[in-house]
């Protein structure tokens, strides 16, 4: 069932929110280091697919294998631990803690894993350099631009060296130039860290940064590569 060598694979995922079936038998797989775009119209279930794959919400039925472990039946605590150590996240907006400085925001996932503050902030700074936002270390999220904020968010998502980076419309709130820059840096950084990227987007130009795409429509997913 699982494509050979897949890092994360889902089979026949179903998830209902009330009467609506957000996922209705979705399939998914991603290999290490691969960038997969999840496309589809609004309300098609893209974000729900991402939430299930990332272990944020458990599916109603179906299986999600991460590295050989079944995630669908994992306890919340184990899924949280997995998210902390193995996954990274970038959302559209509103993910940076407004009270913390940028470097503190980036260091946050490491701190959650128990790394000392000093150590965490040193690592955080090196990632901020790679995303070209190290100049913002002492600033708070309210004082920087949206593009800078997303780059800080990408740095934060990668700071734990995750094996999978989940990005949900990471450029949704940015103009094209800033969006492209964020995507360039994101994919470059992810590739150099050999992190797989699950990229949810409805924008073709953002999806063009992926290796292949999956289309979600009415809760069903289509893996385009395997069709062609």
């Amino acid at each position, binding site marked *: 069932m699982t494509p050979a060598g897949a890092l994360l694979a889902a089979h026949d995922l179903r998830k209902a929110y009330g009467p609506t079936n957000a996922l209705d038998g979705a399939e998914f797989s991603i290999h290490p280091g691969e960038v997969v775009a999840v496309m589809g*119209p609004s309300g098609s279930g893209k974000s729900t697919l991402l939430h299930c794959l990332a272990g944020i919400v458990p599916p109603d039925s179906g299986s999600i294998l991460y590295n050989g472990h079944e995630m669908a039946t994992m306890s919340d605590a184990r899924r949280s631990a997995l998210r902390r150590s193995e996954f990274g996240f970038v959302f559209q907006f509103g993910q940076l803690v407004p009270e913390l400085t940028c470097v503190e925001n980036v260091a946050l996932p490491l701190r959650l894993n128990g790394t000392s503050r000093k150590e965490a902030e040193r690592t955080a700074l090196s990632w901020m350099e790679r995303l070209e936002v190290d100049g913002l270390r002492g600033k708070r999220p309210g004082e920087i631009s949206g593009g800078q904020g997303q780059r800080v968010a990408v740095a934060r998502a990668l700071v734990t060296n995750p094996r999978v980076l989940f990005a949900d419309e990471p450029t949704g709130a940015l103009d094209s130039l800033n969006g492209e820059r964020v995507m360039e840096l994101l994919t470059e950084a992810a590739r150099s860290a050999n992190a797989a990227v699950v990229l949810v987007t409805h924008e*073709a130009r953002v999806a*063009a940064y992926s290796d292949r795409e999956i*289309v979600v429509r009415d809760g069903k997913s289509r893996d*385009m590569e395997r069709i062609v």
Partner: protein
Amino acid sequence: MSIGHTLLGLLESGPRHGYDLKRAFDEKFGHDRPLHYGQVYSTMSRLLKNGLVEVDGIEAGEGPERKRYAITEAGVTDVQRWLATPEKPEPYLQSTLYTKVVLALLTHRDAAEILDTQRSEHLRMMRILTDRKRKGDLADQLICDHALFHLEADLRWLELTAARLGKLAEAVVR
């Protein structure tokens, strides 16, 4: 746009006279450019020669003789292959894509499939352009961006059409 494939597709729903074919084509696709009957005649002879259609019967009457054409097995396969093959992503594709979608709907094939395949092809192209852009200089970037934006526009059209397939089917099959 391939008139041959279009006429073949129209024949799939049943044998027709050449003149009927022209009328059906004009009605579904030739809103602004009605087909000249000569085009139908020459296309049908080519298809006949290639064994994609056969003559179902001839009606004699006043004026020219009227042949009735029917699609062959080979013809159906050919239509199928044409529909399944994505168009090379390039500007101003929509008339071809539109024809394909309508034909798919008329012949009860999966129109969404056609759109998804096309989307995939567009994205493949966009990936290549994106990649070239990343490695290239500013001039390359600007040129690639131009192409990318056009492809994106097509893709948006594809998505919009996909979202309206149900309505389109109603309108076409009516």
